[in-house]
């Protein structure tokens, strides 16, 4: 097995076994773990507090414990997270940062506090008017509060220079990921849809420094390799909250698609925007959030997501866009009619898929994806 295969295998194993991977990361690093609810969390603060930010993006967990707290129309990510919390799967975390990006998240926080009192919940509110100076000031204060709560729970003092170093590391990670996802396109056989997803996902369960090291090593090797042929593959851009379960991505591979870029909250939206390199840490973090556009979870008055997808389509010479709608994810649903119209006006083929994380049968999705492939042929 060559070094690339070895690294990819390692990252895929990490992504496929979150619980074990988190335990290993915490044990090897000797650090504490802090859970981060979707979509964004101030991971730089957690890392600066000498803890590991852990992504909490649901999973295939099924059960009915969460039914005591959640309506049937809550998204499957929230259901899986709540189920796992009630099963005490998150007890290895020292704290959980809960965000308020959707109505479900806003409402469920107090339930979590009551249902899982052993978990230390730190709420954070990202500003609606994140570009306005008042919004930036609000978010800076919010970051200060979160920092204070982290210090109290983790029993540490987070100095400013540590946060600056952490932001530098995260920005390095973001830039490296930007190069990495582009480089993957030169290797459509090595980086099929499943591998591409898992390699990105692994970062949620690792120390960012270790993950970055592996990504930079992969980049170094790949940049000196001859590209693989992508002849006959249909190039698509995935957009939406996330592209799980893994079997969904198998269907893209089976039907001859190459994922050339993504606009997924779980993947590229996490790293496509770097913040300013200068300024105090609060400003750097708040400005980065202010700068990021084209995300359903960050209020965008100008509705630039469609234009962004059209630019991506042009840049990556993609054949089509696939919108993966997590069932009951309202913020993503609100964007859909706008996107649909904008893409249709430019005659960009669009496939709309509705998913849940815990799907028993993917046969309907198979027909949709295969039909789309036949349609583009």
């Amino acid at each position, binding site marked *: 097995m060559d070094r690339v295969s070895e690294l990819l295998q390692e990252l895929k194993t990490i992504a496929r076994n979150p619980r074990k991977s988190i335990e290993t990361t915490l044990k090897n690093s000797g650090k504490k773990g802090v859970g981060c609810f979707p979509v964004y969390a101030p991971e730089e603060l957690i890392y600066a507090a000498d803890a590991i930010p852990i992504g909490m993006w649901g999973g295939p967990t099924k059960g009915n414990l969460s039914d005591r707290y959640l309506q049937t129309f809550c998204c499957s990510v929230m259901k899986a997270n709540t189920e796992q919390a009630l099963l005490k799967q998150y007890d290895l975390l020292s704290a959980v940062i809960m965000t308020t990006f959707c109505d479900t998240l806003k409402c469920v926080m107090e339930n979590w506090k009551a249902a899982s009192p052993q978990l230390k919940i730190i709420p954070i509110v990202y500003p609606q008017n994140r570009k306005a100076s008042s919004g930036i000031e609000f978010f800076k204060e919010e970051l200060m509060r979160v920092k204070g709560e982290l210090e109290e729970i983790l029993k540490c003092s987070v100095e400013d220079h540590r946060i600056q170093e952490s932001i530098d590391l995260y920005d390095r990670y973001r830039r490296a990921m930007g190069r990495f996802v582009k480089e993957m396109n030169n290797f459509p056989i090595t980086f099929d849809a499943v591998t591409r997803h898992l390699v990105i996902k692994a970062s949620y369960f690792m120390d960012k420094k270790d993950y970055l090291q592996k990504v930079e090593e992969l980049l170094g090797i790949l940049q000196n390799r001859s590209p693989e042929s992508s002849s006959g593959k249909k190039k698509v851009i995935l957009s939406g909250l996330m592209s799980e379960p893994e079997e969904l991505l198998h269907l893209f591979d089976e039907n001859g698609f190459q994922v050339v870029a993504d606009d997924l909250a779980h993947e590229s939206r996490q790293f496509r925007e770097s913040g300013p390199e200068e300024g105090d840490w609060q400003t750097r973090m708040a400005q980065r959030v202010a700068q990021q556009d084209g995300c359903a979870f960050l209020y965008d008055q100008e509705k630039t997501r469609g234009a962004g997808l059209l630019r991506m389509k042009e840049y990556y010479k993609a054949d089509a866009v696939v919108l993966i709608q997590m069932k009951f994810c309202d913020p993503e649903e609100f964007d859909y009619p706008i996107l649909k119209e904008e893409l249709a006006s430019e005659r960009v083929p669009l496939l709309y898929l509705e998913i849940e994380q815990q799907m028993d049968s993917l046969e*309907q999705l198979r*027909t949709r994806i*295969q039909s789309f492939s*036949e*349609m583009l042929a």
Partner: protein
Amino acid sequence: MYLGIDIGSSSSKAVVIDCDGRIKGSSVVNVGTGSKGPKKVLENVLNLSNVRLEEIEKTVVTGYGRMTYQGADKQITEISCHAKGVIYLVANACTIIDVGGQDAKVIRLNQWGGVENFVMNDKCAAGTGRFLEVMARVLDCSVDDLSLLAKKGSYGVQISSTCTVFAESEMISQLASGKSIEDIALGAHRSIAQRIVGLANRIGISKEVVMTGGVALNQSVVDAIEIEIGLPVVRLENPQVVGALGAALFARELA
């Protein structure tokens, strides 16, 4: 000779064509994937066509059960196959409404007869043949009788198109309040039509509109759809086998 087999959720269909595309025989068996339907429909269509299996040059399988059928040269989705079959029969078709036992699909065709866009129902029985089966059970009649009852209805009570389970309880309430069975049956057909048209509106409807699938045999549903969309719907002689015909036409292209 070329064979197309369409294995649906509740029926199996097959068509044999010759090298000029002429239909030599077709068959429908009212059991679908996971049953003896595919085997039975193959036997039937070969008998009806007076063709031996060895004479079949190529076979294409489509439908929900296409992934598990052994013995085909290729599997193609029912969306592509319905488009192929419809264009063969109605050259200027633009919109296909295909409603089967568990699925509803609307396909928009481009000027060359290819698939330009499509939509499918999600995991829900509303807007599919299953909806009519449930409604017929409540009224203690067959689906065919339900259609005949609807023809006699004049008023058409309001029944939910959102959910089959809700619709069932609404129907029982309407019966309890003394509404006539004919008006309730008409309401049920309007309900399924509204659901299907709601799906179709997501990609737009334009002439000629052709309806395929088992539910297209139900004239009350087709009538209700025509009223909802304000356009005539082309009624095919044998709408159930259009997917299988498309598969057979694809099989001919493989040769």
